[in-house]
């Protein structure tokens, strides 16, 4: 009888939300310059509402556009002023603090080249780095890594990391060897997943709906409109905010500690789900605010986990597209176009909102519904890859983001 087992049991099952995927080598060129840069890409799946994250409070059309859902400086929960024009969602005090310390920046009205509104295709474009959705088996981050000259191999203690096969997020899939590290806890199903399932059960299987409602403590969800207005009945929903928040922070904090080690990996990515806020978006004190708060906690956890290495760190938070400028009939937002990219880290030249602001009136909205994209997300990513980890211009324009010759790397993002 032969019995052979490899490293880990449950961890291996968890290659996904909150799992870190990182290059197995250290970047030689950057090291040769006497730097030791860390780059962490955080993918938010589901399409983040950029306007609810960083609101154009100085835009004369803003308050009218979002009505009582508009984040305002003098709202019930006042937004945090970034400059005279933009304000940050108050659920993100850590990002605000970093912004003031010039260690965080916002790129606004940014989007990938994708202009349709399918999550699956949008995520493909976001992660593949190609201009269009379609069959691809590698992601831009991996192709960027493949062009870097490796120095030493990153440490891969079996209990912490292991080489992975093809089952990785697209953004890090490819020929460059990637390690993964997974937090020991289960990633909870998000509230959003629970709500969608509940909605499906209500329409098709009352018995399952009843169980789900009871168990989730969500029995009081208003019936009208299906997914309307989550009433948590005074108690947190299991799989809900507290759990998500704890999980975000734990996953990213541990990933950061891993990357902070002298021989730990340097360049990696992780993903968080749950941003598809079609109904009861709750930008102010609701569901989106909870999620942003969890993201904020995760950024703080990276800062803490990195320790000394924070000063050489950049985090880039990106999402597949934005959401409609208007609030829809169920107090949420539908799939849109431009959004924000959030950048943070000690190596960042922060304290800025970088944007060619398109405006949000009926004339300037894209297809009369979405924030118009005025910055190509690839420019941001190319800037970071070039100036922070030293990927060559040539590679960026050809293999990393094929067909992006006309998209110039954004200069001056690094301190």
């Amino acid at each position: 009888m032969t019995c052979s087992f490899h490293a880990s049991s449950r961890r291996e099952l968890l290659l996904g939300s909150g799992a870190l995927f990182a290059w197995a080598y250290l970047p030689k060129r950057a090291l040769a310059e006497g730097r030791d840069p860390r780059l962490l890409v955080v993918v938010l799946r589901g399409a983040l509402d950029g306007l609810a994250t960083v609101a154009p409070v100085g835009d004369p059309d803003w308050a009218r556009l979002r009505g009582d859902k508009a984040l305002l400086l003098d709202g019930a929960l006042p937004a945090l002023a970034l400059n005279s024009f933009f304000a940050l969602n108050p659920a993100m005090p850590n990002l605000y603090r970093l912004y003031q310390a010039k260690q965080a920046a916002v790129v606004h009205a940014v989007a990938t080249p994708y202009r349709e509104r399918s999550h699956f295709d949008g995520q493909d474009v976001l992660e593949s780095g190609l201009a269009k959705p379609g069959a691809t088996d590698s992601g831009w981050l991996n192709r960027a890594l493949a062009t870097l000259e490796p120095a030493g191999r990153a440490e891969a203690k079996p209990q912490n990391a292991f080489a992975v096969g093809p089952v990785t997020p697209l953004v890090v899939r490819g020929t460059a060897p990637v390690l993964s590290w997974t937090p020991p806890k289960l990633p909870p199903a998000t509230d959003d997943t629970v709500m969608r399932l509940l909605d499906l059960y209500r329409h098709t299987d009352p018995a399952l709906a009843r169980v789900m409602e009871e168990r989730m403590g969500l029995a009081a969800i208003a019936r009208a409109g299906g997914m309307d207005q989550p009433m948590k009945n005074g108690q947190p929903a299991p799989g809900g905010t507290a759990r998500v928040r704890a999980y975000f922070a734990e996953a990213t904090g541990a990933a950061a500690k891993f990357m902070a080690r002298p021989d730990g990996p340097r360049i990696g990515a992780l993903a968080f789900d749950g941003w598809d806020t079609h109904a009861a978006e709750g930008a102010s004190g609701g569901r989106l605010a909870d999620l942003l708060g969890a993201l904020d906690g995760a950024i703080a956890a990276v800062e803490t986990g990195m320790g000394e290495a924070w000063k050489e760190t950049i985090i880039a938070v990106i999402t597949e597209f934005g959401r409609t400028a208007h609030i829809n009939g169920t107090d949420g937002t539908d799939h849109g176009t431009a959004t924000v990219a959030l950048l943070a880290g000690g190596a960042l030249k922060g304290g800025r909102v970088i944007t060619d602001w398109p405006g949000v009136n009926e004339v300037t909205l894209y297809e009369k519904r979405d924030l118009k994209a005025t910055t190509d997300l690839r420019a941001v990513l190319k800037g970071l890859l070039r100036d922070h980890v030293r990927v060559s211009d040539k590679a960026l324009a050809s293999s990393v983001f094929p067909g992006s010759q006309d998209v110039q790397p954004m200069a001056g993002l690094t301190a």
Partner: protein
Amino acid sequence: MALDPKTFAATALHRFGFGPRAGSIASVAADPRGALLAELDRPGAGRIANSDLLTTGEAARAAFDFRQERKAARLAVRSEREATQQAIKKAADDAKASSKADMAQAEIKQGDGTPTEAMQPAPAKVNPGPGIPQLIYLEEAKARFDSALNAEIGLIDRLTWFWSNHFCVSADKGQVRPICGAYEREAIRANVLGKFSDMLLVVESHPAMLLYLDNAGSIGPNSIAGQRRGKGINENLAREIMELHTLGVQSGYSQEDVTNFANVITGWTFRPLRQDPQHGGEFFFNERMHEPGAQSVLGRSYGEGGYEQGRAVLLMLACHPATAKHVSTKLVRHFIADNPPPALVDRMTKKFLDSGGDLKEVTKTLVSARESWDAPRSKLKRPAEWIVSSMRASGMMISDVRRVINTLNLLGEPLWRPSAPKGFSDESADWLDGLTQRLDIANEIAHRIGGMTDPEAVADDALGPLASTETRQTIARAESRQQALALLLMSPEFQRR
């Protein structure tokens, strides 16, 4: 049949198999019922071809040797530690003696020389890893799940799981763990298409069952061993054979029948492992433990005949009308409906009795029956069935079976570890509570592989026309492929069959 061919095919695959893999629906759509019947007729059906798997005897002996070695190692460590402590104590005593001598010379010394914890380095605790019984258990588990994952449809594996649960044992009891997998292969799987009486005989004489239901140590009070040691019978197995394995509860047997039957099967045990390195752990009728004399069971007298006496009672029970009805009801409840249609149960009962308990014929009756196809898809899949069908739908394979085992622990259906001899429930209501745990697992599976899949294609492959408009919309509108796959695996059409 009102069902269109693909609906018919998808229903067949979920209800009688482990759910579709990519392409399954199309490949059986021409004749789903025929495909099920053909699986029953395939040569070698139900065997697990894996020469690495141990027989019951081999497994029991390997586990026994392992336990002996561990015990010897423990004893060696203990005696070494005791020797060391002796030596230290002696050194300390010597030191005390000399310090007294020193004190006599008016010299004060710090410390009294008594050995402290810190002075004795505790032996480093090395995790020895899973022992042989657990390794065998895992190997058997892997073979079982691989068989279900790789089956074309999986009816035979479903039957194996059904009968294994009907005749359940528990790995948590005594020395059952290393042999519960071999038990399922040798006693259950090998007989799911044979005669019920054959299965019953192998099951009730299998060491796993004899250990699990305490018959291995049951001694007839008037037997040689009983007379010498003053010990007696244990009724557990006899009662459960009647109540759970054959006749069913409240089918007319009395306490006296149970006691007498327990006397009949005294001596049904296995060869002692310590004394028999060749055949230890294999079934053995021990005449010296057997209660002598005739016994009356269900109004019929069974004359003394050693092992044959027990065999005769089991054959009688195997062909009893109450048994036929009991197992037919359970089969229908498992495969078709929580409340089995009486007409179908009656036809299967009749087939059972007419065919002398031919389980292949009974299964064919089940698969061919109109009721088996007309019943609404209301049964909630049991956790293990749902996990396997989820893996088949999403194309996952097992690289470490412990993950599957951990998942089943979470979902309340731990492998070969039911909490009682009744086995795991086959009624949907009992599994509803685990729905939220299923969501956690679905979420986990989806994050593992969801990014690689096309959820709408998986929905086509796994549900085909069974997928409701609502479910398809929910999948299409999901915020990510991962979420879409989780929602698909949690959809009512995928949870139920």
